[in-house]
């Protein structure tokens, strides 16, 4: 049955898989950081990604700020929005069962997406690629922008991982993940650190949205389906495992791309099948260290 599959198709889908995987990795990374420190399952992550794309679009259309400016500014705006969200709806729920914060972010999604649909409608809006054209690699055509997305997201993921694993700030985060009250007893303002960590994770989602704007259509619902995929990625990688989230994100993107080549009907299902198999074979997650899954 594989006779009809050309190398072009295979590599083309691999690239698409890698691009999707870049988004999965960036978003699940943010979700894992947030869960790791403040134990909030941020259901609004997809909506915040969508906001990043919209902020970039509005900056371009109304303020004349180009893509490269939005790449810096939009995540800051979305991060600030996340900070406000943390203070108003998450902080009051901090000492309660985690399900309340999950539901609060879910409720926030209903409001955010509803308001955005009201303002911008349901159809997708275009965002012109800042890097038109591409290069013919012989076996396939690679648009410059897509290449940029793959490289840039990889840099962001690696930089974030280094920040957490190798710096003093990262040490505070890792320690506070284990015993927040002890870290606070050292004189560190852990409550503030928690709010800022949420804002940082949200800013990562916003950054993902800016990156996505020129590839996918900008629409209020662009984040909600992605959200469930990201949840599955985090479950497969092991909750709160930073490296697990990144690696699983790329892995799932690529597997999904390959499924499109060999069995297109199942490409939507592939990730969930992987999740179920992973849950049966590795109940604690593919990459989880014992202490990070609490």
């Amino acid at each position: 049955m594989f006779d009809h599959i050309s190398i072009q198709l295979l590599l083309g889908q691999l690239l698409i898989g890698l691009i999707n995987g870049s988004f999965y990795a960036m978003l699940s990374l943010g979700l894992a950081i947030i869960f790791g420190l403040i134990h909030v399952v941020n259901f609004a992550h997809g909506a915040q990604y969508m906001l990043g794309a919209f902020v970039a679009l509005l900056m371009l259309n109304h303020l004349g700020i180009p893509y490269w400016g939005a790449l810096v500014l939009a995540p800051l705006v979305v991060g600030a929005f996340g900070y406000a969200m943390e203070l108003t709806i998450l902080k009051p729920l901090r000492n309660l069962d985690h399900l309340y914060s999950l539901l609060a972010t879910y409720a926030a999604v209903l409001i955010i997406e509803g308001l955005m649909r009201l303002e911008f409608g349901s159809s997708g809006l275009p965002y012109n690629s800042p890097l038109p054209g591409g290069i013919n690699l012989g076996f396939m055509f690679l648009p410059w922008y897509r290449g940029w997305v793959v490289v840039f997201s990889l840099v962001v993921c690696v930089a974030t991982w280094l920040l957490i694993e190798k710096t003093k700030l990262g040490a505070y985060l890792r320690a506070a993940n284990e015993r927040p009250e002890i870290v606070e007893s050292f004189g560190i303002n852990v409550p503030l650190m928690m709010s800022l960590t949420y804002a940082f994770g949200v800013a990562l989602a916003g950054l993902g949205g800016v990156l996505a704007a020129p590839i996918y259509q900008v629409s209020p619902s662009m984040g909600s389906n992605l959200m469930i995929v990201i949840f599955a990625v985090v479950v497969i990688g092991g909750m709160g495992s930073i490296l697990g989230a990144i690696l699983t994100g790329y892995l799932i993107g690529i597997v999904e791309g390959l499924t499109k080549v060999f069995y297109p009907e199942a490409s939507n299902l592939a990730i969930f099948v992987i999740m179920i198999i992973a849950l049966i074979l590795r109940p604690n997650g593919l990459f989880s260290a014992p202490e990070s899954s609490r």
Partner: protein
Amino acid sequence: MTDPLMKVENLEAWYGESKALHGMNFDVRPGELVTLIGRNGAGKSTTLRAIMGIVAKRTGSIVFDGTQLIGRRTYQIARTGIAYCPEERAIFSSLNVAENLTLPPVLKAGGIPDADLLVQFPNLQRRLKSQGTKLSGGEQQMLAIARILRTGARFLLLDEPSEGLAPVVVKDIGEQILRLKAQGFTILLVEQNLSFARKVADRHVVVENGVVVDTLDAADLAANLDRVKHYLGV
């Protein structure tokens, strides 16, 4: 008699709905080593946690160096110059020994420099790159004490440092604590091990059911040993 460095009055504390402290009254003078002794569940550890603000709710008064601690957040309390070493040591497994040691930030002058810490706690020197929780119980206890000495805090809350350790290690810990006292630290020590407490303390505060039932100078302990042993249930 010198003014107390810390004065605790009518301290009450809750875990959730249940009340654990019912009006604690005691003080600690500068440079002094005071133990809180009493049986399991008497409220000794809770007293330390209440001082640090790590309980659900607390009322009363804790004045430290002229500052009222009730109403302040844990990190603010730490910044007044108090350091806390918890009973379970809380060495971070995701950090290596060096990271654990240097995690607490320097908050004010007067802390011990890192190089001196490694001289004072020589066992840690060889294990700097090990994962924190791979250390033996005694080494973990040394690390837990060592890391709070760099912040500049001069008032230490130590929660049962001798617990679960072999006698020879307990002896080491005792010597380290005496050394800290000689270095001028003021120490509030929670202990259940009376023979350990006797060797290091200036004064003993006996706790039962969340209140202070007795306060004894070290010199008076021998004369009242039976009574104290009765409180401890030994």
